[in-house]
């Protein structure tokens, strides 16, 4: 188990290193001087442009040799210095992101966990109930094929605009200040419901299909057939199959995280939900490159961290990994 986690950790560290390098490299790889490009696109007053230009030159350290730029980039990173947002000048990027994190977690954690659990349960049920299989399977395929933002738009339009049941923008009503009270929590949940539901549904489809296919595969496996031949009740066989089908679903969760995060970003944009996705949209529209790079690093770190946690859980659940019997 130690070896397994060690190997995983090595991959994550390498990935992080790779990601940070991309983050540093891309602005410098693009044709032309990134600072000039940025300033030119902002269409600012001349004096403001000059101030910004000197700030950018210092920030990008374009006057230093490349290796030094790279080294300093890492040093700044470890100090938690991701630069200053130009959109919300002069707030540091890290502070801007820090404010968005609670909303990301509020949306993502319940949506991921609940859809995963519900999808697994329903998928397992579909594997043995014909009518459920015939309804869940097509529905599941439609849901996984749906772009996250489109389902979000559809729900916002139908339940928000037409039916008027839910608000379609923000994390809370603008006339309420965030504070700890029933009123605020209620308002928060009310705003949270649609983005959560749209994320939940799209993921749910994928998990349900995955579980259904995995469990059918497990029910055909040799150990299931042996138990069946020895007259074991279906209940026991399904229990085993479900447990074993769970393992690839855990791996699947880790592998899907990137796509899920992408979906969450798009969903936040639809609902103007103040998480990282919304920040990215603002950063793109306001040409705030430091904020964009900060969001990038934040997402990478989050996904890698989540991956590692899932790996630990997997190792705890799967005896093969725990005993160090599998290579990967």
């Amino acid at each position, binding site marked *: 188990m130690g070896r397994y986690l060690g190997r995983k950790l090595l*991959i*994550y560290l*390498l*990935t992080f290193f*790779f*990601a940070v390098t*991309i*983050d540093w490299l*891309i602005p410098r790889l*693009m*044709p*032309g001087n*990134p600072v000039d*490009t940025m300033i030119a*696109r902002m269409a600012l007053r001349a004096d403001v442009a000059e101030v910004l230009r000197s700030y950018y030159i210092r920030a990008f350290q374009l006057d230093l040799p490349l290796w030094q730029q790279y080294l300093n980039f890492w040093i700044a990173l470890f100090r938690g210095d991701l630069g200053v947002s130009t959109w919300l000048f002069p707030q540091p990027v890290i502070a801007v992101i820090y404010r968005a994190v609670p909303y990301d977690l509020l949306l993502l954690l319940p949506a991921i966990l609940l859809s995963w659990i519900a999808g697994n349960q329903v998928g397992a049920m579909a594997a043995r109930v014909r009518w459920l299989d015939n309804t869940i399977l*097509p529905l599941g*395929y*439609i849901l*996984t*094929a*749906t*772009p996250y*933002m*489109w*389902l979000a*738009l*559809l729900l*916002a*339009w139908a339940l*928000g*605009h*037409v039916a008027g049941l839910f608000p*379609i923008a923000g994390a809370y009503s603008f006339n309420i200040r965030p504070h700890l009270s029933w009123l605020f929590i209620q308002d928060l949940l009310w705003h949270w419901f649609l983005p959560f539901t749209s994320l939940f549904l799209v993921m749910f489809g994928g998990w349900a299909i995955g579980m259904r296919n995995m469990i059918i595969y497990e029910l*055909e496996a040799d150990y299931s057939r042996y138990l069946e031949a020895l007259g074991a009740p279906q209940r026991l066989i399904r229990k085993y199959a479900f447990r074993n089908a769970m393992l690839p679903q855990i791996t699947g969760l880790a*592998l899907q*995280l*990137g*796509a899920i*995060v*992408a*979906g969450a*970003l*798009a969903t936040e*944009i*639809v609902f103007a939900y103040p998480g990282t996705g919304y920040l*990215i*949209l603002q*950063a*793109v*529209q306001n040409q705030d*490159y430091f904020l*964009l*790079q900060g*969001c*990038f690093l934040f*997402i*990478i770190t989050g*996904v*890698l961290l989540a*991956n590692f946690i899932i790996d630990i859980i997997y190792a705890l659940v799967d005896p093969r990994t725990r005993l160090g019997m599998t290579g990967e």
Partner: protein
Amino acid sequence: MRAGIRHEFLYFALRNAKLRVGLSILLLFIVAALIGPLFARYDPNAYVGPPAHPPSPEYWFGTTTFGQDVYSQFAHGLRSTFVVGLIGGGIGTLLGILIGLVAGYRGGLLDEILNMFTNIVLILPTLAVLIIIAAYLTVRGILVESIFIGCTAWPWAARAIRAQTFSLRAREFVDLARMSGRSSLKIMLTEIAPNMMSYLFMTFILQFGGAILNAATLDFIGLGPTQGMSLGLMMNNAVLWAALQLGMWWWLIPPGAAITAIVGALYVMNVGLDEVFNPKLREL
């Protein structure tokens, strides 16, 4: 014998409901993408009509907040969706085949390195990387977008193909070919790849669908093509210009519905193909 097997596949392929449904929907949209723009009377970005007009005989899908023709945008967007799928999915599949085949066939240190690299790119959230790249590109076209999408999407394919190659490598006919002194490249292309044809084809279908979804998200965030039109860009504009608040469903719904239908059809087709190629899954 081979001809017989091929005949067998055809026999089951024509009888597979999933494959037929998926393929029909896909063909419908391909035809729409091919001839749809011919019926568009306006330039997709030109301001041609009354703003925020619901669908009418004059503007089939209505108009945007600025009076652009939604149908023209849709028809052109559909085209770019297929372009992205074809190029992005194609590059993703090719890279996946290349890396998977070499890693699986060669094994050893090269495999270790390639596998490590695959794992790294696999964990990296694709969209985050695309965002960073796209943000710094001053001019973005559909083609460049497709290429970048393909370049980040291959690890899935590479992993699966590597595993397949591993199992094929141990088989007799590969040994025979190796003993006859043929080069590795030749063996990979003439002995191993043809034996995974069905598998490669299914990989391409999945990559195709994945590329379309990725492009849609990227466009929606506002990092889509700076020139041209795409379905994701339509949704991006719709949200930015308050289509939701104004209840302009004719602008919100068609782009996403088309993507869902195309990608869904691809997935269903894939399941059908799996049943055709995999006798165990054929339903009775």
